């Protein structure tokens, strides 16, 4: 049960972002830009960074949600599954592997990022902006994961829930839905 009363039809992060809309606004703006804005990394690659960090933070809700989004964007579900076990074995470019390793270091601590891992990413063709954005995405998911779990929000057990959420993230991105989330109340009612 969450540590504070949150809308029951909005598990995970969504209920928190609705509870505190003033603080949600810049978090949503940042997420929309860094995961969906113009970038030399694809939205799928950026969702992989979000997923690997959430996985290492053992945040069930965020891991399942961003795995679903990445799977939809990639059109398959093997890449995420392999990445969670072994970054080196993941079917992505060598540059992406190097960036995912930097993200995994950021998950540990900012100080865990080594000059060697950055030099390696650059040698694989990563630009300064790509390295910057990788570190910021990884940092942002250290925020989200702690927010979601630190408030003990609910992570639904039903895999279908995350398929639906992933679909919403792919179609609508991270801005607040223009009409809010009241329409989701109906779906939870027993028919």
């Amino acid at each position, binding site marked *: 049960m969450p540590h504070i009363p949150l809308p029951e039809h909005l598990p995970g992060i969504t209920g928190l972002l609705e509870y505190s809309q003033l603080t949600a*606004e810049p978090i949503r703006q940042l997420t929309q830009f860094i995961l969906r804005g113009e970038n030399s990394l694809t939205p799928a690659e950026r969702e992989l960074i979000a997923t690997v960090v959430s996985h290492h*933070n053992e945040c069930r809700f965020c891991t399942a949600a961003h795995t679903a989004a990445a799977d939809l964007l990639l059109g398959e579900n093997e890449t995420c599954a392999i990445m969670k076990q072994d970054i080196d074995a993941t079917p992505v470019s060598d540059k992406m592997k190097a960036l995912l390793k930097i993200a995994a270091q950021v998950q540990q601590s900012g100080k865990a990022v080594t000059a060697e891992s950055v030099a390696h990413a650059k040698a694989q063709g990563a630009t300064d902006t790509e390295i910057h954005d990788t570190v910021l995405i990884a940092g942002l998911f250290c*925020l989200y994961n702690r927010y979601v779990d630190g408030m003990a929000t609910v992570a639904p057990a039903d895999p279908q829930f995350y398929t639906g959420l992933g679909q919403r993230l792919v179609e609508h991105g991270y801005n607040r839905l223009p009409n809010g989330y009241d329409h989701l109340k109906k779906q939870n009612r027993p028919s």
Partner: protein
Amino acid sequence: MHTMPGCTFTSAAARMQEERPIHSPEIFPQMAHITLPDESLPGIVGLFNFRPETAGPLQLLAETLLRGESPLTSGERELIASYVSLLNDTHFCHTSHGSAAMAHLGHDVSLIDDIKNGFQVIEVSPKLRALLNIAAKVQKSGKAVTDEDIAAARAEGAGDKEIHDTVLIAAAFCMFNRYVDGLGTWAPQENEAYREMGQRMAFTGYVRFPIKQDAVEV
């Protein structure tokens, strides 16, 4: 020179120059992992300058969290920010937010060291102590926060919003700290170098750096 609230005539570029420490070393102790447009700008300021598109929302987040509406005072919230940054070993954020806290609380920057010493001099209410305990748990992991930690804060008078704001500030500084250290930015060592920066953070606020349009001018 102190920038007063409402003094909007300073150009964005000039405002950013103010963040350069007065006695900034000729050679910076370390180069960032990426090439920043101005290596003399410390900590997150150099990163704001590098990526104005993300600087905007990051500054607005700091402003809303630390100076927006909350049942916690800005002094209390800056103490939480500084304390979490200390636990993450991020000197720039620890000392700059420590300086902002001292500005709000009317203390000298020398008292920033009291945060390291477990708040022996700075007056910390039992409620804030319980919230600092929650913040320390969040710094480790969201999952480390227990029902008992929350109950202890409620017993000292913390309500839903205070608990929420504490968790989100702590989580946000787990991002800001990783951003600043993960890109290898440099930080001035002495408390004194953060005196004016902290006063500006406290009384002018966080939305004071060039955002997109300004950056094009620069």
